[in-house]
């Protein structure tokens, strides 16, 4: 009676970038699978779809020429927000759950590097959020169609930039979840998001000759620090320009994407640094 199946040695493929990619995608797949069982995720998705449908009724209240505009505005504002809320909620527990449920202890002793594990978690969540964005966009396009509008390339571009913003918030969530416990990391991620959305306002206020930023030097210093530390998320929101019919230069999208991805790279690198040396007790 013997336990082993193989009498010849098994081949383990653990060296090289391909093997690493295999491990990252295994972790990503499992992350996706876990999120796919998350009630919160589906709850949020369901409620948002209902809201989109509800925006049809809402638009009936609007003036005839405003109907399409209302549905468009609503979708462009709500869809990214919902995806970001999901990123914050799931991102905050991304690593904590694995530690808390001790599932990590069975996985990390395997021939996987911690960085690969982290990238896998990030990738899994990113794919999930992409799926969420696509599902919501499809529903929204349906609603637009019912209202007599149509889904345009400009709208697709706007949502594409939103996805960059979503990735950025996810990477911030990853970093904070590598660093601290869920509630704190959720709060910190929300902080980055909220401040990120209004940095341009802070900037404007600092340029102004009146107001608290001009008059109180301490506030000015604080404003500078915030603006420097937090990504400017307004970069990824072009709804106003779309509505105003302002044409953005084509390289705006390239630049905005590069700007966003640099922040993603920065947060992911920081997370790797923190997670690599952390005691998993």
């Amino acid at each position, binding site marked *: *009676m*013997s*336990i*082993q*199946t*193989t009498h010849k*040695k*098994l*081949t*383990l*493929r*653990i*060296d090289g970038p391909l*093997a690493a990619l*295999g*491990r990252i995608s*295994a972790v990503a*797949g*499992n992350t996706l*699978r*876990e999120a796919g*069982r998350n009630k919160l995720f589906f709850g949020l998705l369901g409620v948002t779809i209902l809201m989109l449908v509800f925006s049809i009724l809402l638009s009936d209240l609007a003036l005839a020429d405003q109907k399409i505009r209302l549905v468009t505005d609503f979708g462009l504002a709500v869809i990214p927000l919902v995806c970001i809320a999901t990123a914050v909620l799931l991102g905050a527990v991304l690593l904590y759950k694995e530690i808390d*449920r*001790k*599932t990590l*202890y*069975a*996985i*990390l*002793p*395997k*021939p*996987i*590097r911690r960085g690969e594990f982290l990238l896998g978690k990030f990738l899994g969540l990113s794919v999930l959020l992409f799926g969420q964005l696509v599902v919501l966009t499809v529903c929204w396009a349906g609603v637009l169609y019912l209202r007599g509008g149509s889904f345009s390339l400009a709208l697709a571009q706007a949502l594409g930039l939103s996805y960059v913003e979503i990735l950025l918030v996810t990477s911030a969530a990853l970093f904070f979840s590598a660093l601290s416990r869920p509630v704190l990391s959720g709060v910190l991620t929300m902080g980055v998001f909220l401040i990120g959305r209004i940095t341009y306002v802070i900037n404007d206020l600092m340029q102004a000759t009146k107001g608290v930023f001009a008059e109180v030097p301490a506030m000015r210093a604080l404003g500078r620090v915030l603006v420097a530390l937090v990504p400017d998320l307004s970069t990824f929101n072009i709804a106003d320009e779309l509505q105003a019919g302002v044409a953005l230069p084509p390289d705006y999208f390239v630049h905005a994407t590069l700007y966003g991805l640099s922040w993603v790279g920065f947060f992911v690198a920081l997370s790797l640094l923190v997670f690599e*040396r952390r*005691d*998993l*007790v």
Partner: protein
Amino acid sequence: MTQQPDDILALDHLGKTFRVGFWGKKVQAVRDVSLTLKRGESLGYLGPNGSGKTTSIKCILSLIQPTSGKIRLFGADPSDATARARVGYLPEAPYFYDYLKPTEVLDYVGKLYGLDSATRKKRIPYLLDRLGLAHAMDRELRGFSKGMLQRVGIAQSLLSDPDLLIYDEPLSGLDPIGRKEVRELMAELRREGKSMFFSSHVLTDIETLCDAVCILDRGEVVAQGRLSDLLRMDKLESEALVDLPTDGQDAATTRLLAVAGVELMEQTGAMLRLRLPTDAVPGLTAAVVDVHATLRELSQRRESLEELFVQRAVHVSTDGQRTVPASRSA
């Protein structure tokens, strides 16, 4: 690498201090543990709860960083994934993703080891079947008993056909039948030539599983060496069963216990169970003849691991000092 090629695991003055609470109070979980495990050997890492076994194992697997000392796993640092690839690890009270089925857990693990899908397809059902999980292969883990989870844990530890098995408390939390089964399984793996490093705080059923032991208490080694060496010293003790004569039993008992070194262990009716140093046997036999008693049985006392454990561990925890002579820790 200066070490012997057949040293597959070496701890060199391993120490781990945790900092807890707001003030960063130090907790020394492991202090100055040195040991080596050679290929094909089985080492029991023993000690009461909280003695530092799990902490040491987490260091060996690079889950935590030692604060002092060094670890070599297959001649490399534990942070080296290639070295860890040769280890099969069973965590203490293993937890896996409870929304997965055993086949899915093993498939995930197999991917991390870079096993191709043909191998996974063949090996996973086989292992699960061998571990008696065939009936539960397609059920989610959330309803599994502790014993079943332990088996999933063992199955995943064997998936990559590792050279070294590191099992943290493989027998704890199981019912008697489960313990027996896991014990037999481990004995089988040992016969197959796997090297083993396993921890336990219960001793009765592991004596037969290991060649050597390292006994910890409060993070420190209190006894270490081959089981046969550690227990042999205590063969210097003997045990005697004596039937007292029908009259004058009290006087006879007094006379027997007056022999230097003899201790009464228990008395049942006219029978005494005595414990004595082996070199006091001639004195005792003379006294037995003297009082017209009968020596029913005389045997060498072989201390059990449990007694050794209690003797040393309790020693340390009562006065808080290392009292084991250097000669005893080989």
